[in-house]
């Protein structure tokens, strides 16, 4: 049962009550197959057209433009909330969303226009479990990425190396496996990979350098696609991705033997992501005790996990944006192209206090008075009184506890909610559970107390 929970946390965002009741006695291979089958059936969210960027008279003033930038920022923020809810939604493929989130952190990109953010998300989703070759090429042609890493400005007569450098350093082969000359030559190959005002990828022949490039010991009239092919032909790229996947899906402390195995399988499958992930999820070592419950949930993991387990309705549509910001992970807005550092970097006194108070806030519909960071454009530091007013629907939890005696409630709930064991948890509870409490009240309080434990931060 612990293994099933572990699988669903790492390959998804934990189990809903219904999923838990259905799957807890499944074997691993059945569960893994089911996750991949769900992913294959998943549908994308339809994209949206990019509003015309200029030309209209009312856009001419600077104020109007600033206003639109602000609007777009709100739209992107709401989209991040949307995505979070999709991760939490048992009707969607959890594995696909998990893999998409992994690649979002890998191909980290800040998106300023909501249609571009959505287009990128759909690209990530379409290839998240497919071919890494295809995914890398699509991301090199992704408009939000092109704009984020200045490939718009990468022209034959004035090359901009930003994209080419990050492609090698962070997206494929990693530091130590390329030279400065390789960066320069790769940048030439990507000249003219640009976008138009409608937010579409365009190749501008007039800006492209058709000359010879000397890249990693080869010479030719390479374009961007040729560079990606050559980077992925290097085993170092498979090593780099396998190591990153291990640290993300298995354990931050790397086991070199298993990484080597993953890298080999990944390379030999010609970069099939499904092969890489299946190898992880179907390996015995994935389920070893030191890997289970050892990872600190990211803020998005934490929120998606809560929403998957409890039916929560927020009164304010920005509540989930606020929580992301206060806890330090806003989707579509990673801190930089290196993505979120993760692990203990999520934790400081303020984020941990909020994480542990969160269940209390939600259950009591509390007002949270916090200033959040990450809004340098904010007109001023307004006293940000943020409300987490929400209604928590416990009906599925009650369903789980149907026929469970009062004494067994804490154990059954701990089993369902926690991935890291909390021995003698009842000592916390005894502070609370006294006097004449109704059964429902007992369940509410036990749930809240479990979700306030440091152990609940683990997955």
């Amino acid at each position, binding site marked *: 049962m612990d293994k099933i929970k572990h699988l669903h946390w790492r390959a998804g965002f934990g189990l809903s009550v219904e999923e838990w009741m259905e799957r807890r006695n499944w074997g691993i291979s059945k569960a893994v197959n089911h996750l991949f089958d769900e992913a294959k059936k998943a549908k994308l969210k339809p994209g949206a057209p990019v509003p015309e960027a200029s030309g209209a008279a009312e856009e001419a003033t600077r104020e109007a433009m600033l206003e639109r930038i602000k609007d777009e920022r709100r739209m992107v923020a709401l989209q991040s909330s949307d995505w979070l809810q999709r991760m939490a939604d048992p009707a969607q493929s959890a594995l696909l969303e998990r893999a998409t989130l992994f690649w979002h952190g890998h191909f980290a990109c800040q998106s300023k226009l909501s249609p571009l953010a959505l287009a990128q998300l759909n690209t990530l989703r379409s290839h998240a479990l497919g071919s890494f070759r295809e995914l890398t090429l699509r991301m090199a042609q992704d408009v939000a990425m092109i704009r984020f890493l200045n490939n718009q400005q990468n022209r034959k007569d004035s090359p901009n190396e930003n994209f080419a450098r990050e492609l090698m350093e962070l997206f494929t082969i990693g530091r130590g496996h390329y030279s400065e000359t390789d960066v320069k030559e790769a940048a030439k190959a990507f000249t003219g990979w640009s976008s138009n005002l409608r937010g579409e990828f365009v190749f501008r022949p007039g800006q492209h350098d058709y000359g010879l490039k000397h890249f990693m010991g080869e010479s030719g009239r390479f374009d961007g696609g040729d560079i990606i092919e050559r980077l992925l032909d290097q085993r170092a790229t498979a090593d780099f991705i396998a190591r990153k996947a291990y640290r993300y899906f298995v354990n931050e402390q790397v086991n070199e033997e298993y990484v080597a195995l993953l890298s080999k399988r990944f390379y030999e499958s010609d970069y099939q992501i499904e092969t890489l992930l299946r190898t992880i999820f179907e390996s015995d070592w994935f389920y070893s005790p030191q890997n289970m419950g050892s990872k600190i949930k990211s803020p998005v993991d934490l929120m998606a996990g809560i929403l998957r387990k409890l039916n929560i309705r927020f009164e304010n549509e920005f509540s989930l944006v606020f929580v992301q910001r206060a806890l330090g992970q806003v989707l579509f807005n990673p801190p930089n*192209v290196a993505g979120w550092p993760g692990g203990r970097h999520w934790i400081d006194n303020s984020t941990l206090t909020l994480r542990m108070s969160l269940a209390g806030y939600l259950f009591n519909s509390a007002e949270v008075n916090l200033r959040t960071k990450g809004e340098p454009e904010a007109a001023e530091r307004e006293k940000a009184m943020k409300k987490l007013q929400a209604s928590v629907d416990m009906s599925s939890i009650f369903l789980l506890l149907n026929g469970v005696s009062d004494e067994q409630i804490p154990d059954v709930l701990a089993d369902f909610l926690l991935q890291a064991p909390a021995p003698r948890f009842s000592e916390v509870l005894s502070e609370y559970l006294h006097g004449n409490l109704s059964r429902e009240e007992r369940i509410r309080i036990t749930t809240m107390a479990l979700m306030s434990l440091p152990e609940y931060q683990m997955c």
Partner: protein
Amino acid sequence: MKRRDFLRSTALASTALMAPSFLMDFQSKRLLGGQAGKKLVVVQFSGGNDGLNTIVPYRNDLYYQNRPSLALKSSEVLPVSEELGFHPALQSLRELYDEGLVSILNNVGYPNPDRSHFRSMDIWHTASDSSDYLATGWIGRYLDTHCEGCDKPYHALEVDDGLSLALKGNLRNGFAVSDIAQLKRTTDSRLLKAVGKYGATVGHHDEENVAYLYKVMADTQASAGYLHQQMQTHRAKAEYPQTPFGKDLKQIAELMTADSDIRIYYVSLTGFDTHANQKPQQERLLRQYADGMKAFIQDLKSKRLLDETLIMTFSEFGRRVKQNGSGGTDHGAANNLFLLGGGLKKAGFCNAAPNLSQLDDGDLKYDTDFRQVYATILNRWLEADAAAILGQRFEPLALV
């Protein structure tokens, strides 16, 4: 102690002892009766302050040509040199300047400047090259390295609800709190108290990350209690402006007066991203800053703390030399940086005025790397190993 052993011993300490180290520091210090030593206060102008309208080149024709409607008239500015004068809202700062309590560095920046708020702020926080991405900040690494092998770790506190990257280290983090009373209420909630008690009872957590979380929680609870108690006994009597910034400074002064081991304080003033209608907005913020600083410095002076306090004020970038079409300015590069305090080596201007005729793509060029300022502060003020913390050696400056 070798680094490996050190890491092992800290890991042990965090799993076995569960001691609120923050509190222990205070206790051990009190036993030793030691002197708290020098303090650093960092003031961050978030959004990119327009340095050219802060310290104004009021006799430079190029300034007026580039800013037909935004330039401050020479009759408006508060002149402090042949070339430069203060923004009129900085009257209070001017008074401090006249007392020899202000140093101004012009043209501070870094190679290959980035014009994104987030990125440039990260560069200032991590002290990285603009092509590198670090997950720890310069103050966090100060806490890390200064702590290594020493028996008396120091602490850094940010007056905010979230902790800035600058204060995050690999082994240690700074402490973020905007309202100590509120933090106390939160950590005193029945639930968190019960969890805290549970953590102390269980005592031993096999999983290292779980142990780490319990440690951070115990530290937070102990710190909240300690800070709250200190605040109660050291209420500042001095008058501070009734602004959020004034309130933040007052809180810092109270903690500095208290017998605390906090060596670094961090506070931000936000709203400098003045793309449109800059004048009233910047004026309001600069006035808040200057009036706050004056009250703060007078308070510290009356408590005889000024000579051991250094205040550094910076922004993630300056703004373009040319104003834009809507009475504002866009993101630029090099900017001025202020140092305030009683221990300045060279009050007044430390280097040349900005050169408006030699620009880098419309922006001021830097002549001083901000990491030289950090290196100077780390080496000479905090007596730390700047090269180890910054990862590179930077030429120190004659500042403190």
